[in-house]
Protein backbone atom coordinates (compact mmCIF):
# COMPACT_ATOMS: atom_id res chain seq x y z
CA UNK A 1 0.00 0.00 0.00
CA UNK A 2 1.45 3.33 -1.06
CA UNK A 3 1.94 6.23 1.35
CA UNK A 4 3.07 8.57 -1.41
CA UNK A 5 3.49 8.66 -5.16
CA UNK A 6 5.71 10.91 -7.28
CA UNK A 7 5.39 11.14 -11.05
CA UNK A 8 7.78 13.03 -13.36
CA UNK A 9 7.57 13.60 -17.10
CA UNK A 10 4.71 11.20 -17.76
CA UNK A 11 2.45 12.43 -20.61
CA UNK A 12 1.08 15.86 -19.52
CA UNK A 13 2.52 15.66 -16.01
CA UNK A 14 5.81 17.48 -15.45
CA UNK A 15 5.99 16.69 -11.75
CA UNK A 16 3.27 15.67 -9.34
CA UNK A 17 3.68 14.43 -5.79
CA UNK A 18 0.85 13.03 -3.70
CA UNK A 19 1.61 12.37 -0.04
CA UNK A 20 -0.37 10.96 2.88
CA UNK A 21 -2.49 8.73 0.68
CA UNK A 22 -5.38 6.98 2.36
CA UNK A 23 -6.47 3.44 1.75
CA UNK A 24 -9.33 4.75 -0.40
CA UNK A 25 -8.51 7.84 -2.47
CA UNK A 26 -10.80 9.82 -4.73
CA UNK A 27 -9.18 12.17 -7.24
CA UNK A 28 -10.97 15.14 -8.75
CA UNK A 29 -9.91 18.05 -10.92
CA UNK A 30 -10.63 19.81 -14.16
CA UNK A 31 -10.30 18.18 -17.57
CA UNK A 32 -6.72 17.63 -18.65
CA UNK A 33 -5.29 18.11 -15.15
CA UNK A 34 -3.67 14.66 -15.21
CA UNK A 35 -6.08 12.43 -13.24
CA UNK A 36 -6.00 9.52 -15.68
CA UNK A 37 -2.27 9.95 -16.21
CA UNK A 38 -1.79 9.76 -12.45
CA UNK A 39 -3.74 6.48 -12.38
CA UNK A 40 -1.57 5.20 -15.23
CA UNK A 41 1.55 6.20 -13.33
CA UNK A 42 0.46 4.19 -10.30
CA UNK A 43 -0.48 1.28 -12.59
CA UNK A 44 2.95 1.35 -14.26
CA UNK A 45 4.71 1.39 -10.88
CA UNK A 46 2.67 -1.58 -9.64
CA UNK A 47 3.60 -3.46 -12.81
CA UNK A 48 7.08 -2.00 -13.03
CA UNK A 49 8.51 -5.23 -14.44
CA UNK A 50 5.69 -5.80 -16.91
CA UNK A 51 6.18 -3.56 -19.98
CA UNK A 52 2.95 -4.83 -21.53
CA UNK A 53 1.05 -2.46 -19.20
CA UNK A 54 2.25 0.52 -21.25
CA UNK A 55 0.47 -0.77 -24.31
CA UNK A 56 -2.57 -1.73 -22.24
CA UNK A 57 -2.78 1.87 -20.95
CA UNK A 58 -2.95 3.22 -24.49
CA UNK A 59 -5.62 0.63 -25.29
CA UNK A 60 -7.65 1.87 -22.31
CA UNK A 61 -7.47 5.31 -23.90
CA UNK A 62 -8.92 3.93 -27.13
CA UNK A 63 -5.57 3.53 -28.89
CA UNK A 64 -5.32 -0.23 -29.50
CA UNK A 65 -2.34 0.01 -31.84
CA UNK A 66 1.37 0.43 -31.27
CA UNK A 67 3.98 1.67 -33.66
CA UNK A 68 7.42 3.20 -33.33
CA UNK A 69 5.81 6.61 -33.78
CA UNK A 70 3.82 6.21 -30.56
CA UNK A 71 6.60 5.49 -28.04
CA UNK A 72 7.15 9.20 -27.53
CA UNK A 73 3.51 9.75 -26.47
CA UNK A 74 4.32 8.49 -22.98
CA UNK A 75 6.91 11.24 -22.48
CA UNK A 76 6.20 14.81 -21.42
CA UNK A 77 6.12 17.05 -24.47
CA UNK A 78 6.92 13.84 -26.41
CA UNK A 79 10.55 14.47 -25.51
CA UNK A 80 12.18 11.05 -25.09
CA UNK A 81 15.45 12.60 -23.98
CA UNK A 82 13.99 13.17 -20.50
CA UNK A 83 13.18 9.86 -18.79
CA UNK A 84 9.90 9.19 -17.03
CA UNK A 85 10.30 8.64 -13.28
CA UNK A 86 7.60 7.14 -11.11
CA UNK A 87 8.32 6.42 -7.48
CA UNK A 88 6.28 5.43 -4.48
CA UNK A 89 6.88 4.93 -0.78
CA UNK A 90 5.28 1.92 0.86
CA UNK A 91 3.27 2.87 3.90
CA UNK A 92 4.44 0.47 6.58
CA UNK A 93 8.06 -0.14 5.58
CA UNK A 94 8.80 3.22 3.92
CA UNK A 95 10.50 1.18 1.19
CA UNK A 96 10.89 3.33 -1.92
CA UNK A 97 10.05 1.72 -5.24
CA UNK A 98 11.16 3.47 -8.40
CA UNK A 99 10.48 2.97 -12.09
CA UNK A 100 12.53 4.67 -14.78
CA UNK A 101 11.14 4.61 -18.29
CA UNK A 102 13.39 5.52 -21.17
CA UNK A 103 13.69 4.76 -24.85
CA UNK A 104 15.25 1.49 -25.88
CA UNK A 105 17.87 2.57 -28.31
CA UNK A 106 18.23 0.73 -31.55
CA UNK A 107 21.63 -0.79 -32.05
CA UNK A 108 23.14 1.03 -34.99
CA UNK A 109 25.49 -1.25 -36.99
CA UNK A 110 29.09 -0.02 -37.06
CA UNK A 111 29.92 2.21 -39.98
CA UNK A 112 32.94 1.26 -42.08
CA UNK A 113 34.77 4.13 -43.65
CA UNK A 114 36.94 3.27 -46.60
CA UNK A 115 40.31 4.90 -46.27
CA UNK A 116 41.33 6.63 -49.45
CA UNK A 117 42.98 9.84 -50.38
CA UNK A 118 39.69 11.74 -50.48
CA UNK A 119 36.54 11.09 -48.43
CA UNK A 120 33.54 13.11 -49.42
CA UNK A 121 31.33 14.00 -46.36
CA UNK A 122 27.87 15.54 -46.47
CA UNK A 123 27.00 18.38 -44.07
CA UNK A 124 25.43 16.97 -40.84
CA UNK A 125 23.46 18.83 -38.10
CA UNK A 126 25.75 20.65 -35.68
CA UNK A 127 24.95 18.40 -32.72
CA UNK A 128 27.50 16.39 -30.75
CA UNK A 129 25.01 13.64 -29.85
CA UNK A 130 24.92 10.57 -32.08
CA UNK A 131 21.53 10.07 -33.77
CA UNK A 132 19.33 7.34 -32.35
CA UNK A 133 16.05 5.81 -33.31
CA UNK A 134 13.72 4.84 -30.48
CA UNK A 135 13.08 1.18 -30.95
CA UNK A 136 10.83 0.67 -27.94
CA UNK A 137 10.90 1.35 -24.24
CA UNK A 138 13.13 0.17 -21.44
CA UNK A 139 11.84 -0.12 -17.88
CA UNK A 140 14.26 -0.05 -14.97
CA UNK A 141 12.86 -0.96 -11.57
CA UNK A 142 14.69 -0.48 -8.28
CA UNK A 143 13.72 -0.72 -4.66
CA UNK A 144 15.37 0.82 -1.60
CA UNK A 145 15.15 -2.67 -0.05
CA UNK A 146 17.85 -3.84 -2.40
CA UNK A 147 19.71 -1.00 -4.06
CA UNK A 148 22.11 -3.26 -5.90
CA UNK A 149 19.40 -5.09 -7.81
CA UNK A 150 17.99 -3.45 -10.95
CA UNK A 151 15.30 -5.24 -12.88
CA UNK A 152 15.28 -4.15 -16.49
CA UNK A 153 12.69 -5.15 -19.04
CA UNK A 154 11.86 -3.98 -22.54
CA UNK A 155 9.03 -3.67 -25.01
CA UNK A 156 9.59 -3.04 -28.71
CA UNK A 157 8.18 -3.52 -32.16
CA UNK A 158 9.93 -6.00 -34.43
CA UNK A 159 8.46 -6.40 -37.86
CA UNK A 160 4.75 -6.69 -37.26
CA UNK A 161 5.15 -8.02 -33.74
CA UNK A 162 5.17 -6.33 -30.38
CA UNK A 163 7.75 -8.08 -28.25
CA UNK A 164 8.34 -8.00 -24.50
CA UNK A 165 11.64 -9.12 -23.01
CA UNK A 166 12.62 -9.95 -19.42
CA UNK A 167 9.16 -9.25 -17.95
CA UNK A 168 8.79 -10.51 -14.38
CA UNK A 169 5.85 -11.11 -12.12
CA UNK A 170 5.66 -9.01 -8.95
CA UNK A 171 4.07 -9.81 -5.60
CA UNK A 172 1.79 -6.77 -5.72
CA UNK A 173 -1.32 -6.87 -7.92
CA UNK A 174 -3.17 -3.99 -9.55
CA UNK A 175 -6.38 -3.87 -11.55
CA UNK A 176 -7.30 -0.90 -13.74
CA UNK A 177 -11.00 -0.33 -14.42
CA UNK A 178 -12.15 2.15 -17.03
CA UNK A 179 -15.15 2.34 -19.35
CA UNK A 180 -13.34 0.16 -21.91
CA UNK A 181 -12.50 -2.63 -19.45
CA UNK A 182 -15.74 -3.01 -17.54
CA UNK A 183 -16.67 -6.28 -19.27
CA UNK A 184 -13.38 -7.88 -18.25
CA UNK A 185 -15.07 -10.46 -16.02
CA UNK A 186 -14.30 -14.02 -17.04
CA UNK A 187 -11.03 -14.74 -15.23
CA UNK A 188 -11.95 -12.58 -12.23
CA UNK A 189 -15.31 -14.26 -11.78
CA UNK A 190 -13.62 -17.67 -11.79
CA UNK A 191 -11.25 -16.55 -9.03
CA UNK A 192 -14.07 -15.04 -6.97
CA UNK A 193 -16.14 -18.20 -7.44
CA UNK A 194 -13.30 -20.37 -6.17
CA UNK A 195 -13.12 -18.20 -3.04
CA UNK A 196 -16.89 -18.66 -2.54
CA UNK A 197 -17.46 -14.88 -2.71
CA UNK A 198 -20.16 -14.85 -5.41
CA UNK A 199 -22.97 -14.31 -2.84
CA UNK A 200 -21.26 -11.03 -1.82
CA UNK A 201 -21.34 -9.90 -5.45
CA UNK A 202 -25.03 -10.84 -5.80
CA UNK A 203 -25.88 -8.97 -2.60
CA UNK A 204 -24.33 -5.80 -4.05
CA UNK A 205 -26.02 -6.26 -7.44
CA UNK A 206 -29.39 -6.67 -5.73
CA UNK A 207 -29.00 -3.06 -4.58
CA UNK A 208 -29.76 -1.93 -8.13
CA UNK A 209 -31.71 -4.97 -9.42
CA UNK A 210 -33.44 -6.97 -6.67
CA UNK A 211 -34.39 -9.68 -9.22
CA UNK A 212 -30.82 -10.95 -9.58
CA UNK A 213 -30.53 -14.30 -7.81
CA UNK A 214 -27.73 -16.13 -9.63
CA UNK A 215 -24.49 -15.46 -11.49
CA UNK A 216 -22.42 -18.06 -13.28
CA UNK A 217 -20.16 -18.76 -16.23
CA UNK A 218 -21.70 -20.84 -18.99
CA UNK A 219 -19.93 -23.52 -21.06
CA UNK A 220 -18.30 -20.94 -23.36
CA UNK A 221 -17.15 -18.70 -20.49
CA UNK A 222 -19.91 -16.13 -20.80
CA UNK A 223 -21.11 -14.66 -17.49
CA UNK A 224 -24.86 -15.11 -17.13
CA UNK A 225 -27.38 -13.81 -14.60
CA UNK A 226 -30.77 -15.03 -13.41
CA UNK A 227 -33.03 -11.99 -13.21
CA UNK A 228 -36.29 -13.95 -13.05
CA UNK A 229 -36.71 -14.49 -16.81
CA UNK A 230 -37.47 -17.98 -18.24
CA UNK A 231 -33.76 -18.41 -19.05
CA UNK A 232 -30.42 -16.96 -17.96
CA UNK A 233 -29.40 -13.65 -19.53
CA UNK A 234 -25.82 -12.66 -20.47
CA UNK A 235 -24.71 -10.26 -17.71
CA UNK A 236 -23.59 -7.72 -20.36
CA UNK A 237 -27.25 -7.26 -21.29
CA UNK A 238 -28.59 -6.68 -17.78
CA UNK A 239 -27.66 -3.00 -17.84
CA UNK A 240 -24.76 -0.55 -17.67
CA UNK A 241 -25.08 -0.09 -13.92
CA UNK A 242 -24.91 -3.82 -13.28
CA UNK A 243 -21.87 -4.06 -15.55
CA UNK A 244 -20.09 -1.35 -13.56
CA UNK A 245 -21.06 -2.89 -10.21
CA UNK A 246 -19.85 -6.30 -11.40
CA UNK A 247 -16.62 -4.92 -12.71
CA UNK A 248 -15.77 -3.08 -9.49
CA UNK A 249 -16.97 -5.87 -7.18
CA UNK A 250 -14.98 -8.56 -8.99
CA UNK A 251 -11.86 -6.39 -9.07
CA UNK A 252 -12.07 -5.64 -5.33
CA UNK A 253 -12.72 -9.26 -4.38
CA UNK A 254 -9.94 -10.55 -6.64
CA UNK A 255 -7.34 -8.05 -5.49
CA UNK A 256 -6.72 -8.83 -1.82
CA UNK A 257 -3.66 -6.87 -0.54
CA UNK A 258 -3.45 -5.19 -3.94
CA UNK A 259 -4.50 -1.95 -5.62
CA UNK A 260 -7.63 -1.19 -7.64
CA UNK A 261 -7.65 1.85 -9.95
CA UNK A 262 -11.07 3.07 -11.10
CA UNK A 263 -11.18 5.77 -13.77
CA UNK A 264 -14.47 7.70 -13.90
CA UNK A 265 -16.14 6.01 -10.93
CA UNK A 266 -19.54 7.50 -11.75
CA UNK A 267 -19.55 6.29 -15.35
CA UNK A 268 -22.68 4.23 -16.09
CA UNK A 269 -24.18 4.78 -12.64
CA UNK A 270 -27.29 6.69 -11.61
CA UNK A 271 -26.42 9.02 -8.72
CA UNK A 272 -28.53 6.95 -6.33
CA UNK A 273 -26.43 3.86 -7.11
CA UNK A 274 -23.10 5.57 -6.51
CA UNK A 275 -23.42 5.60 -2.73
CA UNK A 276 -24.20 1.87 -2.76
CA UNK A 277 -21.10 1.16 -4.81
CA UNK A 278 -18.93 3.34 -2.58
CA UNK A 279 -20.32 1.47 0.42
CA UNK A 280 -19.20 -1.82 -1.16
CA UNK A 281 -15.79 -0.42 -2.13
CA UNK A 282 -15.09 0.94 1.37
CA UNK A 283 -16.17 -2.31 3.02
CA UNK A 284 -14.07 -4.50 0.74
CA UNK A 285 -11.09 -2.15 0.93
CA UNK A 286 -11.10 -2.57 4.71
CA UNK A 287 -11.88 -6.27 4.75
CA UNK A 288 -9.45 -7.32 2.02
CA UNK A 289 -6.75 -4.68 2.57
CA UNK A 290 -7.16 -3.19 -0.92
CA UNK A 291 -5.91 0.31 -1.71
CA UNK A 292 -8.21 2.19 -4.08
CA UNK A 293 -7.44 5.10 -6.44
CA UNK A 294 -10.56 6.44 -8.18
CA UNK A 295 -11.33 9.52 -10.26
CA UNK A 296 -14.51 11.46 -10.88
CA UNK A 297 -15.86 14.72 -12.28
CA UNK A 298 -19.22 14.34 -10.62
CA UNK A 299 -20.31 16.26 -7.51
CA UNK A 300 -22.94 13.54 -6.90
CA UNK A 301 -20.14 10.98 -6.82
CA UNK A 302 -18.16 13.10 -4.35
CA UNK A 303 -21.22 13.51 -2.11
CA UNK A 304 -21.94 9.78 -2.32
CA UNK A 305 -18.32 9.08 -1.33
CA UNK A 306 -18.58 11.50 1.58
CA UNK A 307 -21.86 9.98 2.79
CA UNK A 308 -20.59 6.41 2.50
CA UNK A 309 -17.36 7.25 4.30
CA UNK A 310 -19.31 9.02 7.06
CA UNK A 311 -21.26 5.84 7.81
CA UNK A 312 -18.16 3.64 7.57
CA UNK A 313 -15.80 2.71 10.37
CA UNK A 314 -13.16 3.29 7.75
CA UNK A 315 -13.67 7.08 7.55
CA UNK A 316 -10.11 8.00 8.54
CA UNK A 317 -8.79 6.04 5.55
CA UNK A 318 -11.03 7.88 3.06
CA UNK A 319 -9.25 10.81 1.40
CA UNK A 320 -9.93 13.08 -1.52
CA UNK A 321 -7.32 14.89 -3.61
CA UNK A 322 -7.89 17.61 -6.18
CA UNK A 323 -5.23 17.71 -8.87
CA UNK A 324 -4.62 21.26 -10.02
CA UNK A 325 -2.72 22.26 -13.08
CA UNK A 326 -1.62 25.57 -14.49
CA UNK A 327 0.71 25.31 -17.46
CA UNK A 328 3.63 23.19 -16.22
CA UNK A 329 2.78 23.34 -12.52
CA UNK A 330 0.82 20.57 -10.83
CA UNK A 331 -0.23 20.06 -7.24
CA UNK A 332 -2.46 17.71 -5.30
CA UNK A 333 -4.70 19.36 -2.68
CA UNK A 334 -5.54 16.89 0.08
CA UNK A 335 -8.91 16.72 1.83
CA UNK A 336 -9.36 14.48 4.84
CA UNK A 337 -12.80 12.97 5.31
CA UNK A 338 -13.66 15.74 7.83
CA UNK A 339 -12.41 18.50 5.55
CA UNK A 340 -14.39 17.15 2.62
CA UNK A 341 -17.56 17.03 4.73
CA UNK A 342 -16.92 20.58 5.98
CA UNK A 343 -16.36 21.87 2.46
CA UNK A 344 -19.50 20.24 1.07
CA UNK A 345 -21.54 21.56 4.00
CA UNK A 346 -20.20 25.07 3.38
CA UNK A 347 -21.06 24.72 -0.31
CA UNK A 348 -17.48 25.44 -1.32
CA UNK A 349 -16.33 23.94 -4.58
CA UNK A 350 -14.01 20.97 -4.17
CA UNK A 351 -13.51 19.93 -7.80
Amino acid sequence: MFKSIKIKNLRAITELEIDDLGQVNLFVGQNNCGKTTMLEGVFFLIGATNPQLLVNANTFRGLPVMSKELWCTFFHNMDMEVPIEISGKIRESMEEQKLLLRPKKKKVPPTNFEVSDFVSLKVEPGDSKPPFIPDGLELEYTSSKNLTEKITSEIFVKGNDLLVERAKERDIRGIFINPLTIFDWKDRFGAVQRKKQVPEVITLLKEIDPHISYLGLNEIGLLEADIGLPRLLPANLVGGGIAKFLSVALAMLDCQDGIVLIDEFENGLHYSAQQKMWHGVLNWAQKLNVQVFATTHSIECIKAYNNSAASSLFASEAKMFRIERKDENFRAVEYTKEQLAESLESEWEVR
Partner: protein
Amino acid sequence: MPNSGPSRITSKRVLAVEGLDEKNFFDKLLKYLGISEFQIEDVGGKEKFPKKFPVLLKTPGFFAPDESSLVTHLAIVRDKDEDEAFQSVASIVAGAGLVPPSKHSTFSKGSPKVGVFIMPGSKVKGTMLEDLCLKTVEGHPAMKCVNEFASCVSALEAKPKNMAKAKAQTFLAAQAEIVNSVGLGAQRDYWNFDSPALDELKQFLGNLR
Protein backbone atom coordinates in the same frame (compact mmCIF):
# COMPACT_ATOMS: atom_id res chain seq x y z
CA MET B 1 -27.32 36.77 -2.27
CA PRO B 2 -28.49 34.08 -4.72
CA ASN B 3 -27.16 30.57 -4.22
CA SER B 4 -25.64 29.41 -7.49
CA GLY B 5 -24.02 26.13 -6.43
CA PRO B 6 -20.65 25.46 -4.81
CA SER B 7 -18.52 28.58 -4.72
CA ARG B 8 -14.93 28.94 -5.88
CA ILE B 9 -12.65 31.78 -4.86
CA THR B 10 -12.93 34.23 -7.72
CA SER B 11 -11.91 37.51 -6.06
CA LYS B 12 -8.49 38.70 -4.96
CA ARG B 13 -10.07 40.16 -1.84
CA VAL B 14 -11.83 37.79 0.50
CA LEU B 15 -13.72 38.65 3.67
CA ALA B 16 -14.22 35.71 6.04
CA VAL B 17 -17.09 36.19 8.49
CA GLU B 18 -18.86 34.02 11.00
CA GLY B 19 -22.37 33.48 9.65
CA LEU B 20 -25.01 34.25 7.06
CA ASP B 21 -26.18 37.28 9.02
CA GLU B 22 -22.68 38.74 8.87
CA LYS B 23 -22.50 37.99 5.14
CA ASN B 24 -25.59 40.11 4.59
CA PHE B 25 -24.33 42.88 6.87
CA PHE B 26 -20.88 43.16 5.24
CA ASP B 27 -22.21 42.81 1.72
CA LYS B 28 -24.23 45.96 2.29
CA LEU B 29 -21.51 47.82 4.21
CA LEU B 30 -18.77 47.13 1.63
CA LYS B 31 -21.01 48.28 -1.18
CA TYR B 32 -21.87 51.39 0.87
CA LEU B 33 -18.13 52.04 1.13
CA GLY B 34 -17.79 51.79 -2.64
CA ILE B 35 -15.82 48.52 -2.46
CA SER B 36 -17.14 46.30 -5.21
CA GLU B 37 -14.59 43.59 -5.94
CA PHE B 38 -14.75 41.29 -2.94
CA GLN B 39 -16.01 37.88 -1.93
CA ILE B 40 -17.55 37.08 1.44
CA GLU B 41 -17.40 33.56 2.86
CA ASP B 42 -18.81 32.14 6.08
CA VAL B 43 -16.07 30.47 8.12
CA GLY B 44 -18.06 30.08 11.34
CA GLY B 45 -17.45 31.48 14.78
CA LYS B 46 -15.53 30.36 17.85
CA GLU B 47 -16.56 26.70 17.51
CA LYS B 48 -16.38 26.16 13.75
CA PHE B 49 -13.62 28.58 12.71
CA PRO B 50 -10.70 26.23 13.59
CA LYS B 51 -12.06 23.56 11.24
CA LYS B 52 -13.57 25.69 8.49
CA PHE B 53 -10.76 28.18 8.01
CA PRO B 54 -8.14 25.66 6.74
CA VAL B 55 -10.77 24.20 4.39
CA LEU B 56 -11.50 27.65 2.91
CA LEU B 57 -7.82 27.86 1.94
CA LYS B 58 -8.18 24.59 -0.02
CA THR B 59 -11.04 25.95 -2.11
CA PRO B 60 -10.14 26.24 -5.82
CA GLY B 61 -8.95 29.72 -6.66
CA PHE B 62 -7.32 30.55 -3.34
CA PHE B 63 -3.86 29.23 -4.19
CA ALA B 64 -2.36 28.55 -7.61
CA PRO B 65 -0.85 25.15 -8.46
CA ASP B 66 2.61 26.65 -7.83
CA GLU B 67 1.40 27.40 -4.24
CA SER B 68 1.39 31.19 -4.77
CA SER B 69 -1.65 32.96 -3.34
CA LEU B 70 -4.21 34.22 -5.85
CA VAL B 71 -5.88 36.11 -3.01
CA THR B 72 -4.05 39.32 -2.14
CA HIS B 73 -6.08 40.30 0.95
CA LEU B 74 -7.90 38.09 3.42
CA ALA B 75 -9.89 39.93 6.07
CA ILE B 76 -11.25 37.90 8.99
CA VAL B 77 -14.03 39.32 11.13
CA ARG B 78 -15.13 37.43 14.21
CA ASP B 79 -17.12 38.18 17.34
CA LYS B 80 -15.12 38.71 20.51
CA ASP B 81 -16.94 36.04 22.53
CA GLU B 82 -13.82 35.53 24.64
CA ASP B 83 -10.97 37.71 25.91
CA GLU B 84 -8.30 36.03 23.79
CA ALA B 85 -10.25 36.09 20.49
CA PHE B 86 -7.53 37.86 18.51
CA GLN B 87 -4.76 35.50 19.71
CA SER B 88 -6.99 32.53 19.00
CA VAL B 89 -7.67 33.65 15.40
CA ALA B 90 -4.02 34.62 14.84
CA SER B 91 -2.82 31.24 15.98
CA ILE B 92 -5.25 29.42 13.66
CA VAL B 93 -4.11 31.65 10.78
CA ALA B 94 -0.47 30.84 11.55
CA GLY B 95 -1.30 27.14 11.90
CA ALA B 96 -2.74 27.21 8.39
CA GLY B 97 0.56 28.53 7.06
CA LEU B 98 -0.39 32.19 6.61
CA VAL B 99 1.17 35.24 8.28
CA PRO B 100 -1.21 36.70 10.88
CA PRO B 101 -1.22 40.42 11.73
CA SER B 102 0.52 41.52 14.91
CA LYS B 103 -2.52 43.36 16.28
CA HIS B 104 -6.26 43.81 15.96
CA SER B 105 -7.66 45.76 12.99
CA THR B 106 -4.43 45.59 10.99
CA PHE B 107 -3.15 43.49 8.09
CA SER B 108 0.03 41.43 7.93
CA LYS B 109 2.62 41.76 5.17
CA GLY B 110 2.30 38.15 4.03
CA SER B 111 0.85 36.74 0.86
CA PRO B 112 -2.05 37.00 1.20
CA LYS B 113 -2.09 39.98 3.54
CA VAL B 114 -4.24 38.82 6.45
CA GLY B 115 -6.25 41.21 8.60
CA VAL B 116 -8.19 40.39 11.76
CA PHE B 117 -11.01 42.45 13.23
CA ILE B 118 -12.69 41.34 16.44
CA MET B 119 -16.25 42.59 16.81
CA PRO B 120 -17.39 45.08 17.96
CA GLY B 121 -13.92 46.67 17.71
CA SER B 122 -11.72 48.33 20.33
CA LYS B 123 -13.81 51.52 20.65
CA VAL B 124 -17.22 49.96 21.33
CA LYS B 125 -18.26 48.01 24.42
CA GLY B 126 -19.60 44.52 23.88
CA THR B 127 -18.76 41.20 22.29
CA MET B 128 -20.52 41.03 18.94
CA LEU B 129 -21.84 42.62 15.74
CA GLU B 130 -25.16 43.46 17.42
CA ASP B 131 -23.33 45.74 19.90
CA LEU B 132 -21.80 47.67 17.01
CA CYS B 133 -25.09 47.90 15.13
CA LEU B 134 -26.87 49.26 18.23
CA LYS B 135 -24.09 51.82 18.75
CA THR B 136 -24.71 53.21 15.23
CA VAL B 137 -28.33 53.99 16.11
CA GLU B 138 -27.96 55.12 19.73
CA GLY B 139 -29.58 58.48 18.85
CA HIS B 140 -32.45 56.93 16.91
CA PRO B 141 -35.96 57.68 18.35
CA ALA B 142 -36.76 53.97 18.47
CA MET B 143 -33.87 53.39 20.88
CA LYS B 144 -35.89 54.97 23.71
CA CYS B 145 -38.46 52.18 23.29
CA VAL B 146 -35.68 49.59 22.94
CA ASN B 147 -33.97 50.71 26.15
CA GLU B 148 -37.26 50.74 28.05
CA PHE B 149 -37.98 47.22 26.78
CA ALA B 150 -34.50 46.10 27.86
CA SER B 151 -34.93 47.65 31.26
CA CYS B 152 -38.30 45.95 31.67
CA VAL B 153 -37.17 42.45 30.65
CA SER B 154 -34.04 42.74 32.79
CA ALA B 155 -36.28 42.47 35.81
CA LEU B 156 -37.73 39.16 34.66
CA GLU B 157 -36.68 35.97 36.37
CA ALA B 158 -35.92 34.35 33.00
CA LYS B 159 -34.44 37.42 31.35
CA PRO B 160 -32.77 37.26 27.88
CA LYS B 161 -29.30 35.71 28.13
CA ASN B 162 -27.95 37.91 25.36
CA MET B 163 -29.14 41.48 25.90
CA ALA B 164 -27.38 42.85 22.77
CA LYS B 165 -29.25 40.37 20.57
CA ALA B 166 -32.52 41.11 22.39
CA LYS B 167 -32.07 44.85 21.91
CA ALA B 168 -31.08 44.50 18.25
CA GLN B 169 -34.15 42.35 17.56
CA THR B 170 -36.33 44.87 19.38
CA PHE B 171 -34.88 47.71 17.32
CA LEU B 172 -35.62 45.77 14.12
CA ALA B 173 -39.12 45.07 15.41
CA ALA B 174 -39.61 48.79 15.89
CA GLN B 175 -39.20 49.47 12.15
CA ALA B 176 -42.07 49.95 9.70
CA GLU B 177 -41.10 46.73 7.86
CA ILE B 178 -39.86 44.12 10.33
CA VAL B 179 -36.88 41.90 9.53
CA ASN B 180 -35.48 39.32 11.90
CA SER B 181 -31.71 39.64 11.62
CA VAL B 182 -29.10 42.38 11.78
CA GLY B 183 -27.85 41.40 8.31
CA LEU B 184 -31.26 41.89 6.75
CA GLY B 185 -31.55 45.08 8.81
CA ALA B 186 -28.39 46.29 7.09
CA GLN B 187 -29.83 45.40 3.71
CA ARG B 188 -32.86 47.56 4.63
CA ASP B 189 -30.62 50.47 5.74
CA TYR B 190 -31.87 50.28 9.35
CA TRP B 191 -28.35 50.74 10.80
CA ASN B 192 -26.62 54.09 10.45
CA PHE B 193 -23.56 53.51 8.26
CA ASP B 194 -22.56 57.18 8.71
CA SER B 195 -22.09 56.73 12.45
CA PRO B 196 -18.57 57.39 13.83
CA ALA B 197 -18.99 54.09 15.71
CA LEU B 198 -18.12 52.40 12.41
CA ASP B 199 -14.92 54.39 11.79
CA GLU B 200 -12.52 51.72 13.05
CA LEU B 201 -14.28 48.98 11.03
CA LYS B 202 -14.44 51.17 7.92
CA GLN B 203 -10.73 51.88 8.17
CA PHE B 204 -10.05 48.14 8.42
CA LEU B 205 -12.29 47.30 5.47
CA GLY B 206 -10.65 50.07 3.44
CA ASN B 207 -7.74 47.64 2.96
CA LEU B 208 -10.00 45.64 0.65
CA ARG B 209 -10.18 48.46 -1.87
